[in-house]
């Protein structure tokens, strides 16, 4: 286990593997196998005949259209900055193309099994998109590497923030005004000349200061009241020791903090209201299956 906190907690129970990961169903195993299978194709030969890019804005529009055609719900571009790269890794490319695939909110509310299947489906889709996009950019004659669940050297949240997908929420995930935090990432780093998007702030951090719905519903009390500052951005640092008993040490997935986020209400008003009614009935901090 790469995560030292999880490893210590699992070993304390006398087990060798997290119950959550040990109990995966065949459909989940198939999704995981799909990104392992695509990992060797993250990088590849670059077309020696390079397309000249006279208009980076037009090229950016073309790249975004291609990613949408492949199934991305959001696509953005920014310059690759040091804080976006995993510590100890090196990625020398100038730009990063960020794609996301949204989860089906109606589906994830059916329960932990459906949440997990939907999460894995979207991760697998992001893997396909980023792999295909990297190959497309290499065909244009520019180096490009896909970063996804199979293998990655980049950090999702700082990139998603920089390309304007949203702002960091209290539950530790990035919130988009349309998809809430119910979406998964895939990336391509490249030297293809592109035009950057900009961060977009639409009041999430101020809203989270007073909302507390995710905190009130978290079964493990893992979402803190207080925040820290990182380069001018508020971050509520999730306490993994409190989160993992519900998200990793049980067989079932936990996605409650994302499900109850009021930023889901805009796109799914009736479903969200029904969920919150149910949460009130079961007692807010009750895990999803009870």
């Amino acid at each position: 286990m790469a995560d030292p906190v999880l490893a210590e907690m699992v070993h304390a129970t006398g087990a060798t593997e997290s119950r959550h990961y040990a109990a995966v169903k065949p459909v989940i195993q198939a999704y995981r196998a799909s990104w392992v299978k695509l990992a060797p194709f993250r990088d590849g030969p670059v077309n020696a005949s390079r397309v000249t890019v006279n208009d980076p804005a037009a090229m950016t529009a073309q790249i975004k259209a291609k990613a949408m055609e492949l199934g991305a719900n959001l696509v953005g571009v920014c310059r690759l900055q040091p804080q976006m790269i995993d510590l100890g890794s090196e990625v020398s490319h100038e730009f990063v193309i960020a794609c996301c695939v949204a989860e089906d909110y109606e589906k994830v509310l059916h329960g932990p099994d459906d949440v997990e299947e939907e999460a894995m489906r979207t991760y697998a889709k992001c893997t396909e998109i980023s792999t295909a996009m990297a190959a497309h950019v290499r065909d244009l004659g520019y180096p490009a590497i896909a970063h996804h669940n199979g293998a990655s050297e980049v950090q999702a949240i700082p990139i998603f923030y920089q390309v304007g997908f949203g702002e960091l929420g209290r539950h530790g995930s990035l919130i988009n005004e349309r998809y809430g935090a119910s979406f998964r990432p895939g990336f391509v780093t490249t030297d293809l000349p592109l035009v950057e998007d900009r961060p977009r702030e639409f009041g999430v951090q101020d809203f989270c200061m007073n909302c507390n719905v995710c905190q009130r519903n978290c079964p493990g009390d893992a979402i803190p009241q207080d925040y820290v500052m990182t380069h001018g951005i508020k971050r509520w640092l999730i306490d993994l020791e409190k989160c993992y008993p519900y998200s990793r040490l049980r067989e079932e997935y936990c996605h409650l903090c994302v499900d109850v986020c009021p930023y889901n209400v805009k796109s799914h008003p009736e479903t969200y209201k029904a969920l919150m009614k149910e949460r009130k009935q079961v007692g807010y901090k009750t895990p999803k299956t009870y």
Partner: protein
Amino acid sequence: MEKLYVNAIGPDGEVSTVGLFYSQPEAQKIVDMLSANSERTGYRYEIVEAVRHVLSEKDSLRTRS
């Protein structure tokens, strides 16, 4: 488990929290990696007890009682 923040202190004195870590060796490993990063010269790092998380635990308990 211990709870520790790693803070980065910039050349202008601005304190920026790198993250929450759960043991001294884990926090120190991050500090060593960051200190070795040539793009972060001018920064110094500190490891401090995550006191604010302790406070929020108390707040949370008070809310539930």
